[in-house]
């Protein structure tokens, strides 16, 4: 069982170091027989990977430079002239052009309105609000459930069930909960705060953040519960002998000793929120007035409503670039940590 517990706190960086360990441990030379057997064992995965992951990545790169429509068929390169030079970057340039779009939400009525940047703004706002809140929330819930409290299983289930729901279910349920006649307004009406939360451009993104939090806290709670178990009891005992109060122990023992968990949870949350899609689509289909159009919602629309596959793939690569930078940054920091130990 310790294997599984080990895996619980593992990450890509640890995978890399595991490989290095394995390389160090292996003393036998690969034999011809082993080569044959080994390749046979991994063959199904290699085929699936090539067909559905590596091949598509390469193909996506090609697509992103082309005018490609599912119904009109294969495309030509899309060109853009930059400083008198013709470059095949048409899709990338188009994304940054103003988008012709009619709307009735005053805030957006501008001739230079660019839907891509608006989607980036929505995604960034969502990330900035949801990530810290769900990390702190997950930590607090984990802390409470790690203490001497009865009914842990019931509480854990309450917080964790939303994690398991399909984005479609979460989005649709919240649509009803937050609707004009929904349960949230039942509570707010006596206070004079009733509002059509899902149908107003001003509040729809905030509502989406709430759904993200609802689904995210349980996941972070589990990661923190796993992290809390790895803190040696001796540290708490030592702090107690030094006269630290409960809050001081949390601040000086618990929080710093969860450094790896914080890091892991943060990067995961950021990468996840960058790609928020399903709940936005199921909740409000990107609306009202584009208020919940996130980057991936826009990619989906561009590809499957407008059939502009080339342009959508170019957007996906821009997103990939951002995710890659974060992943690389995380990898670098993990490398430095290993040196520090």
């Amino acid at each position: 069982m310790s294997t599984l517990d080990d895996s619980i706190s593992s990450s890509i960086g640890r995978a890399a170091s595991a490989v290095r360990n394995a390389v160090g441990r292996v003393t036998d030379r690969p034999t011809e027989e082993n080569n044959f057997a080994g390749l046979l064992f991994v063959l199904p995965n290699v085929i699936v990977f090539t067909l559905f992951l590596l091949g598509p990545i390469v193909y996506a790169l090609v697509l992103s430079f082309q005018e490609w429509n599912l119904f009109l068929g294969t495309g030509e390169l899309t060109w853009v002239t930059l400083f008198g030079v013709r470059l095949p970057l048409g899709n990338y340039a188009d994304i940054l052009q103003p988008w012709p779009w009619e709307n009735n939400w005053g805030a957006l009525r501008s001739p230079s309105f660019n839907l891509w940047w608006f989607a980036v703004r929505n995604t960034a706002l969502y990330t900035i609000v949801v990530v810290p809140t769900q990390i702190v929330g997950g930590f607090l819930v984990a802390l409470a459930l790690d203490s001497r409290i009865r009914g842990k299983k019931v509480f854990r289930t309450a917080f964790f069930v939303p994690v398991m729901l399909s984005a479609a279910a979460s989005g649709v349920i919240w649509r009803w909960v937050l609707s004009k006649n929904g349960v949230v307004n039942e509570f707010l009406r006596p206070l004079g705060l009733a509002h059509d939360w899902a149908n107003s451009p001003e509040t729809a993104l905030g509502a989406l953040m709430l759904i993200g939090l609802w689904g995210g806290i349980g996941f972070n709670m589990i990661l923190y519960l796993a992290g809390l178990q790895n803190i040696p009891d001796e540290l708490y005992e030592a702090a107690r002998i030094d006269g630290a109060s409960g809050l001081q122990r949390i601040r000086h023992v618990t929080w710093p000793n969860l450094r790896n968990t914080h890091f892991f949870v943060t990067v995961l949350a950021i990468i996840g929120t960058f790609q928020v899609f399903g709940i936005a689509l199921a909740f409000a289909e990107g609306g009202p007035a584009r208020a919940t159009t996130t980057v991936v919602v826009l990619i989906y629309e561009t590809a499957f409503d407008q059939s502009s596959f080339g342009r959508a793939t170019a957007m996906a690569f821009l997103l990939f670039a951002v995710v890659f930078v974060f992943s690389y940054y995380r990898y670098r920091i993990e490398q430095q940590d290993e040196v520090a130990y």
Partner: protein
Amino acid sequence: MSKSSYDYPGYERSGSRYWAKTTILYGGITFGALLWSLPLWWMLSTALSGNPTGASVSFIPAEPTLANFEELFATEPVGRWFFNSIVFAGSVTAFNLVFDSLAGYALAKIEFVGREKLFLLFVATIMVPAMVTLIPVYVLLAELGWVNTYQGLIAPLIAQPIGIFLLRQHFMNLPSSLGDAAKIDGCNEFQTFYKVYLPLAKPALATLGIYTFVTTWKNFEWPLIIASDESMYTLPVALFAVRNQYFTEWGLVMAAAAVIVLPVIAVFLSAQKYFIRGMTLSGMKG
């Protein structure tokens, strides 16, 4: 659970400070848990209400009725959608268990040329956002004529790096001497894997199986794209479609939501331990 900061000699379990702390702890966590359960409770009470038009829904329906469920099942092919979801999640899980255990074993226990590079390649692909590959994969499957088919729904998900990673870790931690002994007794590589190591990997297989099943069951993005015909919808896509169809008939919509949500909760309650382990591992998914 660790011993927690409450388990030490001399810890006071009385007095006003203790009771204040305890009250805050229980009060806070109970409030949070109720808040978190509210949407699901509201879903259920709406689904069980006769004619839910906003104000008429109460926390405990005065006259609980299955009318919404009956109407939903009578007007929509819910059975078919349920079947599609089972086929989708079931086959994806089965394929992943077979393929990932083979690959995980080879990457852990067989010394063959290039295996570390291969493993790094598998792990590195975890970082690629789904949207990047989704469109080309769709184009590929459209060329094959696999849109709106079970094979189109299932094929792209049958081998996922997370499973390879988990099972490789597990096999690495099993002693190599077991395999050496089996080989001396005349087992070939496949027999060694199948008869000796695989039975020892049952806990890891259970974790991976439950994790894969639930994440596939709740997968919304891929079926939404590949299944455009009603008869090929999985439950999440169907719910999305039903919502647009019965826009204001929330009783029906919530009944549909309950049909997806209740099995997941049942699975969770029966396999909590494995499920949470698997979920923690999805940290890998990025």
